[in-house]
């Protein structure tokens, strides 16, 4: 299931429903991404305090891109269930941004599929961050480490974003 929403989510309530009653599930892996209060500079790795940020997205395409990523994950791993919740709008340090959950008979599949989903989400789903900083707002630049993280899941060279 995929949800793109402005409001917060309740991890406990989501997990209570997730994979419920399916005793083929041996492992559930969950990743929750949160807004940090520090950010790294493009160059040196120095950190700067960050206030709130706003996450802009492309309604319609966001959902279809995440659905395509979920489909890819289900093709690669034997998954009993998948849940992706991604927020948009204004978020403050400590706020939840994204939840990815996978359920499988085997823990390796649950871990790998969850990791794959968040890596691909970060580089393919149409979201753009604008951070509020002491010097005003700035759009966040795409991260080379995110591209590398996503690239390790690419089996064959492929074109694309």
């Amino acid at each position: 299931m995929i949800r793109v929403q402005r409001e917060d989510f309740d991890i406990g309530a989501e997990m209570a429903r997730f994979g419920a009653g399916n005793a083929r599930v041996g492992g559930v892996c969950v990743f929750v991404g949160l807004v940090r209060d520090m950010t790294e500079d493009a160059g040196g790795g120095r950190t700067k305090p960050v206030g709130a940020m706003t996450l802009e997205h492309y309604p319609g395409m966001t959902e279809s891109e995440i659905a395509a990523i979920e489909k890819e994950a289900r093709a690669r791993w034997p998954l009993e269930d998948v849940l992706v919740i991604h927020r948009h709008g204004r978020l403050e340090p400590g706020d939840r941004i994204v939840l990815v959950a996978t359920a499988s008979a085997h823990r390796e599949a649950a871990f790998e599929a969850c990791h794959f989903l968040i890596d691909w989400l970060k580089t393919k789903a149409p979201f753009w961050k604008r951070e509020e900083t002491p010097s005003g707002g700035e759009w966040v630049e795409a991260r080379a480490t995110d591209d590398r993280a996503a690239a390790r899941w690419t089996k064959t060279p492929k074109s694309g974003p």
Partner: protein
Amino acid sequence: MTVRVLYFAYFRERAGRASEDVSPPADIVTVARLIDWLKEKGEGRERAFADPALVRVAVNLEYVKMDHPVRPGDEVAFFPPVTGGRRRRDGNA
């Protein structure tokens, strides 16, 4: 033909609009041609498309390349690389 153009993130800010319905001439048959045509309309759009390496395009909700066809009724969206990451881009905003 009429094409719906969407701008996101700093493309929206530079173009000064979130969307526009445009009617380019019949020889504008690819995304690349459409970009050239939009840049000529000025009003900040040429600044949005300044760095070709930072232009991403979706036609009808799917990522496409610059040589992808543009047809009447299409929704063509322009935006920078998506940012799950945290590093700030210098000089934009």
